[in-house]
């Protein structure tokens, strides 16, 4: 996946001279995850800029660049490192189109490696998507496959609206063949990764492989689970989600971020409001606990695993 993201950046830089990459360590080092590897060598330091270490300054500078017609792609090194830039993101990036009645759209892509499972110490594993999804004006995109990593990043950079592009860092090393020329579903569309007849697991980003594994394991218990990959949290694909839920009548939402006030709460509420008469059981959530992200030796207790998902699936045999 890391290679696909690198290719997406390289191809976007080649395709459009307005595209500029900036962030801490994106130059000679190629980023701590090597997502920007070789870009400064190929395109020069003006197109792939090593900035001072200051996230608000990085994003604030990108805003001014976008106001002058460029398409900045910003790297925030780790999820929690983006927090100093949240004022710029919330007060300006998300709102500039609205503040100026459409005269100053900001085509900025903010790439944020997010989530746990790589043994990072504190402040390196947060899943912060709920902050971004509850901020109007931002698109929130999170790929789970190699092909989507390429396709959705190209689409995000091409978007005239700002995109928070959440990269599941524990999937960086996932390998799969992909064809850069192959079309992928656009931003805003969910994709069924596995069909099934019993219930659907609704998930995204780092939890997709876990859900696919759980669906495989559930076969032994007689459950044939569908797995739906949201791919984009904003805009949310109500249409596809509701179609699948209505046809199966049972759904579990799975993500590793904390549950209270989380994205899963929003999804469960939406599905319940729209599909109530089709439901055979309450929409359940399997999420991380409502705790600060734990130290790496304990993170496996926090992250939803196959067993916790299967427990939820068992509870779908609802009897009122």
């Amino acid at each position, binding site marked *: 996946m890391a290679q696909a993201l690198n290719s997406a950046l390289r191809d976007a830089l080649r395709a459009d001279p307005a595209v*500029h990459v900036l962030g801490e360590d994106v130059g000679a080092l190629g980023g701590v995850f090597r997502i920007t590897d070789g870009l400064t060598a190929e395109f020069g330091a*003006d197109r792939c800029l090593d*900035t*001072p270490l*200051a996230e*608000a*300054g990085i*994003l*604030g*500078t*990108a*805003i*001014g*660049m*976008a*106001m*002058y*017609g*460029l398409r*900045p792609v910003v790297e925030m090194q780790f999820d929690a490192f983006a927090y*100093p830039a949240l*004022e*710029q993101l919330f*007060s*300006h990036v998300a*709102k*500039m*189109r*609205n*503040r*100026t*009645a*459409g*005269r*100053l*759209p900001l085509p900025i892509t903010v790439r944020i490696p997010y989530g746990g499972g790589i043994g990072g110490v504190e402040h390196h594993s947060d899943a912060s998507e709920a902050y971004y999804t509850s901020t*109007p*004006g931002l*698109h929130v995109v999170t790929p789970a496959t190699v092909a989507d990593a390429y396709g959705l990043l190209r689409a995000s950079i091409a*978007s*005239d*609206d700002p995109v928070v592009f959440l990269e599941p860092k524990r999937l960086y090393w996932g390998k799969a063949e992909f064809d850069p020329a192959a079309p992928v579903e656009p931003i*805003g569309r969910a994709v069924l990764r596995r069909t099934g007849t019993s219930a659907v697991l609704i998930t995204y980003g780092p939890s997709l492989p876990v859900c696919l594994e759980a669906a495989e394991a559930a076969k032994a218990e007689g459950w044939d689970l569908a797995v739906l990959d949201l791919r984009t949290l*904003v*805009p*949310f694909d*109500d*249409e596809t989600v509701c179609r699948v839920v209505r046809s199966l009548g049972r759904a579990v939402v799975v993500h590793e971020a904390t549950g209270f006030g989380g994205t899963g709460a929003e999804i469960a509420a939406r599905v319940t409001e729209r599909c109530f008469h089709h439901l055979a059981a309450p929409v359940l959530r399997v999420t991380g606990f409502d705790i600060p992200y734990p130290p790496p030796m304990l993170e496996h207790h926090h992250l939803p695993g196959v067993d916790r998902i299967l427990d939820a699936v068992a509870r779908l045999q609802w009897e009122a």
Partner: protein
Amino acid sequence: MTVLDHRHHTAVPGWLPGATAPRSDPAPLLPDASPVRVLGTPELEKYDPALLRELYRRLVVGRRYNQQATTLTKQGRLAVYPASTGQEACQVAAALALGEQDWLFPSYRDTLAVVSRGVDPLEALTLLRGNAHTGYDPLATRTAPLCTPLATQAPHAVGLAHAARLGGDPVVALALLGDGGTSEGDFHEALNFAAVLNAPVVFLVQNNGYAISVPLTAQSAAPTLAHKAVGYGIPGRLVDGNDAPAVHSVLTEAVERARTGGGPTLVEALTYRVEAHTNADDATRYRDDTEVAAWREHDPVLLMERHLRRIGLLDDALVQESAEEAEALAARMRAEFHADAELDPMALFAHVYAEPTPQLREQAAQLSAELAAEAEVQHP
């Protein structure tokens, strides 16, 4: 006080390789000990008479604009107005120091700078009237939206200036800030980025003494706010902010330096906010009348009038002409703002995204239905 002067600093060979290359532009980093003044000095007579008369005219019109806008808040016609009364010299000089292709990044108190830039005086007040967030077209006037969060517009100025320079365009960005804004992290990050990128940007801090109620002594321990430039490796300049030709001169020099590749400058203008922070503030709780009275003596409009008369550049004709223009503007403001604005509630959904999300389409339909129902009740 002893302060390091970079002119006497010699790099230690071998220390931090790559970081010791001397900067090509040896402009002194520290400001002069006392602020630059032009009014009351022989320098004044070297200035272009047309520029001085233009500054006077804009000061008079700007003063009236501040008064009328303040009155409109008392009548409930503006939601809020942070007056720049007493700071008009900074505002008009800021706009006049820029070329048409340059960009202005104002804060919420800089409406007058925006107007002086050529934005329609009524459109400049749209935000403060409460009808919409930004009433003017930022691209048409190269003027960013009035910025309410403190100092967050400063990095935008840096980024825009950087992008313009990458494109080979001789564009300078001017960011306007207050003394309180210099305490914000974004101020620091903007100055640092500007210096590292050698961006053609100028920062003007209008030090008006108070961040709402907090005096400068509780805001910063630096000898002057202009001193803050030294740590970033950029020049700091201190100017009398109530001396319009002085502010114009210092800013013009900084803008030209930026335009010709000399990099950013931090200018501190010493001025005073003679009115309260906004109409919602009670300034008597944190400052006494004698202080305000002293600054009223050092009023930018009075100073300009006195000194231009002394050198024979101000005649009764210009006084009358400026006063008439000011009254005409005030009359236009009253006429426009005493009428109720036409507002379209559906505009709330128009500019959230380039294309509304499915969720916003649903909500727009909901509001549309609510409006139709209301209309049905009012006009059955």
